[in-house]
């Protein structure tokens, strides 16, 4: 066994974002520090110390899991298992076909339905997945912001209407902001303009109907998992939030109404103190953006509700049981940073979809942290540390600078066209790999304490069976035969006509179409054709509703 006990002369003292670190921090590092301006009590502007008075003394952070795989039925069973071990609420993350906006029976999807997420082609799938989860009593978050982003809420509204559940009883949300998605592994090949129209429609619909369904939700996690450390993650996350908010304001919506809840998903990286600084600084940055850029008067719109998720990149395939320790440390930084909801990753995820055992271990880790360590007894316990406050200020300063640079260059939407943001992200990912190769970044199992593969722990591997994928493909084929195809055809025609009018909110008709089991592929396909695109983003199939 190789060990590297002796310290490397080339060791660099800097944070993951490249912030140089001194040996020790002292009062002079906080010369301009002002408690009320920089921190304030928890529950008070600028919310650096946390969104609510008392924080975890009153309520431990929300503990939950992203989950779903296989057929709709398999997904439902896993969601039930998660609920049985204490996961709070349902988080729906979709498989690739759904996120791309094609049905499970599409030639590009028949091998991939349900491989890494919940497959949803029609309302039939949503009804199956949520069997046993009464929608008026369950917090449901639709986490996927690709093509499925605007369509799944319509399926959910359709379900509420069918079950006679009033909108006022619905609770949850959808991560609708696609701007981050453009820089993620879940990129959708659908046109940005069409997506934007649908997403803005969903927010407008929820805002006008006073739904408690949070739609102003950005997932910086998606872009961060490309390998961007804290400062870049904050800047890109807020650039995406601003891009989305600007679209909504442009539509004439009131910021304080649509931003009545502001969920924001961050990744939890391994740099313990930089992560704590990131969460604290972000609340402060958002509060200022809300007040200064959007003139917010509603404190709820100024509160960044952070749902953080342990990075999948930091879990390591070699000696996978070590990930249990890594995850515990990451969860701890999120708790110390005052995150409102925290999702773990499971120790086996660099190798496969999580097994039930791995999931249970992660849930137990959360509760060990919440109840055994005493970490939840005192609000923002690291406040006042010379180092933590200095680093929080430094992360904040650097994030503002990068955010300003993005905005000066025309914002995130221009960045999509121009390509410079993509290059910046790719360079960060490459730098990370080069640091691993050179040993500047030490990773146990990869370049430190390495063991031969044959000595490694063997862990159970969870794979989606071919039968589950086939079952899912068949479900979609069956529903397309069973439903009232004339009604679907007429509603899709109506939807396209409304889109052409330009100023009609499409959610009511999309919801009607979903009620008749129109599929995600058909909804996107019909709208695409209406706007002059090929029915199918891959140009492999034609519209089944041609005259």
């Amino acid at each position, binding site marked *: 066994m190789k060990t590297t006990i002796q310290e490397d002369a080339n060791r660099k003292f800097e944070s993951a974002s490249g912030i140089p670190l001194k040996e020790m921090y002292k009062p002079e590092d906080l010369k301009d520090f002002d408690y009320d301006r920089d921190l304030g009590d928890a529950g008070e502007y600028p919310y650096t110390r946390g969104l609510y008075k008392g924080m975890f003394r009153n309520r431990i952070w929300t503990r939950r899991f992203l989950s779903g795989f296989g057929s709709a039925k398999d997904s439902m069973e896993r969601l039930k298992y998660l609920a049985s071990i204490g996961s709070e609420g349902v988080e729906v993350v979709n498989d*690739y*076909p759904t996120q*791309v906006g094609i049905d499970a029976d599409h030639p*590009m*999807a028949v*091998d*991939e339905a349900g*491989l*890494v997420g919940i497959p949803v082609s029609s309302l039939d799938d949503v009804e199956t997945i949520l069997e046993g989860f009464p929608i008026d009593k369950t917090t449901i978050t639709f986490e996927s912001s690709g093509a499925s982003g605007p369509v799944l809420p319509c399926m959910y509204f359709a379900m509420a209407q069918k079950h006679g559940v009033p909108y006022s009883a619905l609770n949850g949300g959808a991560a609708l902001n696609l701007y981050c998605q453009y820089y*993620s*592994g*879940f*990129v959708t*090949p659908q046109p940005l303009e069409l997506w934007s129209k649908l997403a803005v429609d969903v927010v407008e619909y929820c805002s006008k109907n006073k739904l408690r369904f949070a739609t102003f939700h950005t997932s910086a996690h998606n872009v961060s998992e*490309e*390998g961007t450390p804290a400062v870049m993650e904050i800047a890109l996350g807020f650039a995406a939030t601003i891009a989305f908010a600007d679209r909504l304001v442009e539509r004439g919506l009131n910021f304080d109404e649509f931003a009545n809840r502001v969920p924001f998903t961050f990744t939890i990286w391994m740099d313990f103190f930089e992560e704590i600084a990131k969460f604290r600084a972000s609340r402060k940055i958002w509060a200022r953006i809300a007040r200064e850029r959007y003139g917010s008067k509603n404190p709820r719109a100024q509160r960044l509700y952070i749902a953080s998720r342990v990075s999948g990149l930091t879990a*390591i*395939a*070699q000696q996978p049981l070590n990930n249990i320790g890594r995850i515990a440390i990451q969860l701890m930084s999120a708790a110390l940073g005052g995150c409102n909801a925290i999702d773990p990753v499971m120790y086996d995820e*660099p*190798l*496969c*979809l999580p097994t039930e055992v791995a999931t249970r271990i992660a849930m137990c880790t959360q509760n060990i942290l919440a109840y055994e360590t005493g970490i939840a007894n005192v609000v923002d316990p690291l406040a006042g540390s010379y180092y933590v406050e200095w680093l929080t200020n430094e992360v904040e300063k650097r994030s503002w600078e990068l955010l300003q640079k993005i905005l000066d260059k025309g914002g995130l939407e221009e960045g999509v066209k121009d390509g410079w943001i993509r290059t910046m992200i*790719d360079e960060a*990912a*490459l730098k990370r*790999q080069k640091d*691993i*190769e050179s040993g500047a970044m030490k*990773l146990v*199992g*990869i*370049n430190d304490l390495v063991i031969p593969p044959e000595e490694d722990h*063997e862990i159970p*591997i969870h*794979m*989606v069976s*071919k039968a589950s*994928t086939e079952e899912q493909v068949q479900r979609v084929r069956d529903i397309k035969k069973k439903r009232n195809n004339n009604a679907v055809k007429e509603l899709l025609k109506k939807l396209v006509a409304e889109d052409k009018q330009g100023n009609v909110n499409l959610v009511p008709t999309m919801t009607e179409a979903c009620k008749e089991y129109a599929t995600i592929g058909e909804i996107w396909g019909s709208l695409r054709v209406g706007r002059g695109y090929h029915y199918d983003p*891959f140009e492999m199939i034609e519209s089944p509703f041609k005259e």
Partner: protein
Amino acid sequence: MKKIKVIVSKIGLDGHDVGAKVVSAMLRDAGMEVVYLGRFQSPESIFKTTVEEDADVIGISCQSSNHTRLVPKLIDMLRKEGMNHVVIVVGGTIPDPFPEELKALGVDAVIGPGTLSNVIVGTITSLVEQKRKAAAV
């Protein structure tokens, strides 16, 4: 030795391309010619480019366990056309027992997460040398 030409591609709908891009950069640094196909490639499109580019190596990056479904289709196409000279390397999240299964189907090497670039470059170089030698006989 003639410059090694590698097609690097994702396969299917999985868009997680960080690994594929990082590996491409590393192979270029090592003096190889890389044709990067990126996201949303089908077995057909990868096969077509391999023929057009007369590539020595196909490198497929998988994150979503679609290696079990789509890589065999690509191998079938190559076998049907008698393209046994092309080295096939699959990298990414590929747990046991799949590396052995893929090798039995005709994949030349499976490279797991966390593998350092000198190992990747060494593996590809020696596989290409072997195939070139075999072709010359």
